[in-house]
């Protein structure tokens, strides 16, 4: 006998794929952990402190922002953890911690929560934070240190513990140029092996491109990240970089060097692919990636900065609504000629 209890009425579909936003975001965090571990191995306790402070300040900012706007806290969706980790990974390992905390606040408060939180931000929050830091602290953000220092696990890089608004200790002796800086300003190419293993000066998590690539590949294989954006951005850099190299091999390095150096791999794999700020149409994704690749190459080769990935992605983010608008898919059965109004 059917006991006539309450039966639920829901609308179709009555099945749902076993996927959710928090699950995807959690997996992105997992994918970033090996990169974090490698950064700590290269740069020691300073990198560890950097990552903890960047993640902590981002999470705290989002939590407080939700509190202030009287909403349920959204830190449980893990997206802000990604922002925090990414921000730490794109800063120099000896970056002063108080500046990192400011960067985390800027990334999340104006960069994300002011727009309405997850899904509504126009720019990648981590890059908003970094762009702010680059404008506010141009010296500190160019102060890169060599990896694998002997005392890296016992001592902080001096600049890490700088006191807010005081003149930073003289660290010039410790700083060294990244491969891209050497290429651009001194015309010195780095060894392929140095680039491959990522054992050179650079931002905490950007140095080892193959590792970043593998971590991104994990997400692509699990269908939690769009391979088309990564592929098209790398393709853009390879093609346009290759073009420059073909025209003037003496001045412009082999595109392989471009692909493996700087923040390109981390940017192409983990930041350009931030779904919130990228197009949704298939054609749009390819255009978006190639445009970002082109801008990266232009800044690196023709601009005043050694590295252009951050601005390339931010410009790409700004363009993505427009790209979406002009690349709407052709609908099945859409009539080729539009009816002319009479």
């Amino acid at each position: 006998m059917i006991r006539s209890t309450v039966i639920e009425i829901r609308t179709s579909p009555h099945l749902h794929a076993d996927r959710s936003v928090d699950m995807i975001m959690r997996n992105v965090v997992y994918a970033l952990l090996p990169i974090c571990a490698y950064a700590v191995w290269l740069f020691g306790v300073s990198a560890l402190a950097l990552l903890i402070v960047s993640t902590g300040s981002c999470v705290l900012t989002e939590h407080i922002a939700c509190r202030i706007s009287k909403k349920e806290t959204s830190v449980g969706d893990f997206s802000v953890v990604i922002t925090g980790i990414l921000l730490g990974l794109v800063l120099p390992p000896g970056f002063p911690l108080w500046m990192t905390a400011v960067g985390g606040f800027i990334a999340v408060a104006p960069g994300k929560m002011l727009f309405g939180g997850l899904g509504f931000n126009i720019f990648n929050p981590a890059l908003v934070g970094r762009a702010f830091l680059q404008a506010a602290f141009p010296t500190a953000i160019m102060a890169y240190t060599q990896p694998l220092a002997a005392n890296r696990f016992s001592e902080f890089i001096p600049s890490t513990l700088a006191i807010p608004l005081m003149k930073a200790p003289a660290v010039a002796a410790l700083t060294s140029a990244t491969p891209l800086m050497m290429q651009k300003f001194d015309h010195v190419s780095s060894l392929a092996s140095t680039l491959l293993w990522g054992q050179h000066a650079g931002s905490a998590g950007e140095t080892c491109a193959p590792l970043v690539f593998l971590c991104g590949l994990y997400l692509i294989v699990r269908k939690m990240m769009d391979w088309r954006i990564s592929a098209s951005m790398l393709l853009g850099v390879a093609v346009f970089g290759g073009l420059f190299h073909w025209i003037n091999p003496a001045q412009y390095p082999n595109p392989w060097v471009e692909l493996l150096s700087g923040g390109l791999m981390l940017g192409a794999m983990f930041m350009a692919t931030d779904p919130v700020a990228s197009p949704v149409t298939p054609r749009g994704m390819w255009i978006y990636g190639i445009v970002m690749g082109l801008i990266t190459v232009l800044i690196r080769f023709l601009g005043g900065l050694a590295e252009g990935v951050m601005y390339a992605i931010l410009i790409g983010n700004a363009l993505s609504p427009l790209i979406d608008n002009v690349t709407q898919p052709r609908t099945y059965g859409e009539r080729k000629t539009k009816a002319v109004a009479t």
Partner: protein
Amino acid sequence: MGLGVLENIVGKRLWRGVHVPEFKDLTCHLPIRRMPFAPMLVVPLSQHAGSPAKAIVQAGQEVVRGEPIAEADGFMSVPMHAPVTGKVDRIALAPSARGDLSPAIYIKTYASASQEILYGAPQDIEQMTGEEIVRAVQATGVVGLGGAAFPTHVKLRVPDGKRIDTVVVNGCECEPYLTADHRIMLEQPKKVLHGARVAMRAVGAERAIVGVEDNKMDAVEALKAANAGHIDIDIEAVAAKYPQGAEKMLVKVLLGREIPSRGLPSDIGVGVFNVATLAQIGDLLPNRQGLIERVVTISGPGVNKPGNYLMALGTPLRFALEFAGCTDQAASVVLGGPMMGAAIGSFDVPVTKGVTGILVFTHQAVNGKSHIFPCIHCAACVDICPMHLNPSRLGMLARKDRYEEMEADYHLTDCFECGCCSYVCPSHIPLVQYFRVAKQMNREKKAVRA
């Protein structure tokens, strides 16, 4: 065509859409069984697309199984036949799957009657013209049994100025759980093919293609065996993917043709018919009988005896579910497949011509994660939409009540509510529901303006 080369390598397949867990092994091996007659059958007058039928019986009148009890009201309508020998109890309102009440003929079953179909007279289809077949099919009361319940004879009459060269027979049954069409192809392949030839004759097509998903290779073999020695009908296995059974998808997969937006298959020379529909036509037409029963899959985690049941039309769900061993844990009952079927609000809803399945879900199956996140623009919905729409953008516009823009600029009316976008959405946004609301709002606005 470039795609043609690729097709030779990977076979005919639907590129968009989703792979949904099938749950078909609950019932696909179970032969069709007849369900006993319920003590009271409820035959709604409107169980098809088009005008409701007009009752031609009165309360208290005795009816014989197979006898017409309602006549078609115009060309866009079909008659009804008594599904059981018994007595008309009353003509009154009955709950429908849509949730409202609609007029229905209540028939009390004579428990001791033999329930043999005594009604009908043989006719020779070979001697009939296309128009005569159309009329004869209308008299059987057959409508699309794949779920749409569109009157079949309407599709058999080719509009003036159009020509149909190919009949597409839809044996995809891409919805999870459902296996009724599978069993029909397996057990009655000759009837399916006979029905297909009737349809070919009516529309004047020289060939037919039967499209069956490759998760039913035994059905493909059965149809091929039944078709041995004939070249007018091709049987094709297509790679299984939801929603391949939607006629627009199947026509594209099998023939590479696209049905124009707001158009009909006949615009591109195709007529599409479901296998269960054709099996009924193949069975009923030679004997001039009426549609009084259909095969329904009863399945889902909430029933103990899932199976494919041959059920008298008008059987109340309460009776059907009790027969199939519905458990106490039943939390929701869905008519049709889980992707497009409607949850019903009353166990008194009867089985009608368009019911392909009755699925019972338990609380565990229903109460999934229901937290809705904002859209993160992951593009999963854009990538799988079989109509190549932009559900992400449509959903955003729906949230802002910009319904007219959805229709004018983003092809809202092309959405056939297959549910793929809601299925894949990691934010659990009820996109299809948004689109239903938007369509309805637009219809109402137009009605006000008109």
